């Protein structure tokens, strides 16, 4: 059954999509849509909340700001970018979605994402689970000692935190150190056998970045800076993002 036609307002006002175009390189190509539907046909979020990426973009282009700013669909697009990949005009719909997220009052955004971002802002770990640098360092050292003893073939294995001059800076999803520390070990073993000179950092080790998903751009930047600055202070050459 066909959906009822969307009714448009009267004269054209200053619309949200124009503001987004101003801040994106090439305007995100946001006004080049051919309405072909390639984006929607391969988007797993198509149909959720009665929305799909083409519809979202068309509504934005038509100035239906209220509708696009209020639909919870913006929290159901995963920003995966498949739509850009298949779009003949390379239109950056996920950037539009991100900017709509950012236009929501912070306290109205999904509580779980706010909570994970706020946790990451609590201390220098930038961990969405709030673990402190001291807790992280303790867990890593403790688990390492245990395994060196239990598996003597790995008696020389290292899992350093803040090793000056290491080549690789490795971040770490918080889930392992906080809830399943044994799961950190296989990766350590692989790095050990490969002879990699690597380190974790006591600052910015948390690999997940919910402030980015929250579209809290200042907090997102703070987290990236904390981690990258620390990697640079340690003299690391390569940042390995395990997320």
């Amino acid at each position, binding site marked *: 059954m066909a959906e009822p036609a969307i009714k448009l307002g009267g004269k054209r006002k200053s619309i949200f999509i124009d503001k987004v175009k101003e801040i994106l390189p090439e305007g995100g190509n946001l006004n080049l849509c051919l309405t072909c539907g390639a984006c929607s046909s391969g988007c797993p979020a198509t149909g959720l909340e009665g929305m799909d990426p083409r519809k979202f973009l068309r509504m934005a282009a038509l100035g239906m700001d209220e509708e696009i700013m209020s639909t919870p669909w913006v929290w159901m697009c995963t920003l995966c970018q498949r739509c850009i990949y298949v779009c003949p005009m390379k239109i950056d719909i996920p950037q539009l979605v991100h900017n709509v997220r950012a236009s929501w009052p912070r306290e109205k955004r999904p509580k779980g994402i706010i909570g994970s971002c706020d946790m990451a802002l609590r201390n220098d770990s930038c961990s969405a689970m709030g673990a402190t640098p001291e807790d992280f360092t303790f867990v890593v050292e403790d688990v390492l000692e245990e395994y060196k003893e239990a598996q003597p073939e790995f008696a020389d294995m290292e899992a350093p935190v803040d090793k000056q001059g290491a080549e690789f800076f490795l971040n770490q999803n918080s889930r392992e150190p906080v809830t399943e520390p044994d799961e950190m070990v296989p990766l350590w073993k692989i790095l050990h*056998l490969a002879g990699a000179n690597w380190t974790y950092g006591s600052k910015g080790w948390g690999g997940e970045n919910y402030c980015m998903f929250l579209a809290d751009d200042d907090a997102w930047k703070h987290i990236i800076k904390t981690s990258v600055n620390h990697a640079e202070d340690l003299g690391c050459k390569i940042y390995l993002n*395990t997320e």
Partner: protein
Amino acid sequence: MAEDLRYIVKSIVGEENFIDMTPNRSNNYCCGGGGGFLQSGFNEQRLEFGRLKDEQIKATGADYCIAGCHNCHDQIHKLSEHYGGNYPVVHLWTMICLSLGILGPNEREYLGDDLKEVNVFHPETAI
């Protein structure tokens, strides 16, 4: 990157045991674990988003699904339970260490029953 990962996975499980899903590489579908979806509270919608991914995985007929990152691992694990496929979802590091014979008894949380007891490194240290 996509080819490097295929090289590694094939080296671990054997060329003949690797089954690509369709579509794959940059044409593949997101599983629904990204973008903050896992923490957004929209759980019903997240499972609906992931239905495509679950169907893709089942269509391969593979016994295991290897996930490349934590968000994906978490989400696909839930899809496997929710849609009844019950295929194990594992991290790449688990499979690498298993193939090298250095995967200890406490590092096997996500292996299925068929591999839980296979080639255990220092089995006496199980807790």
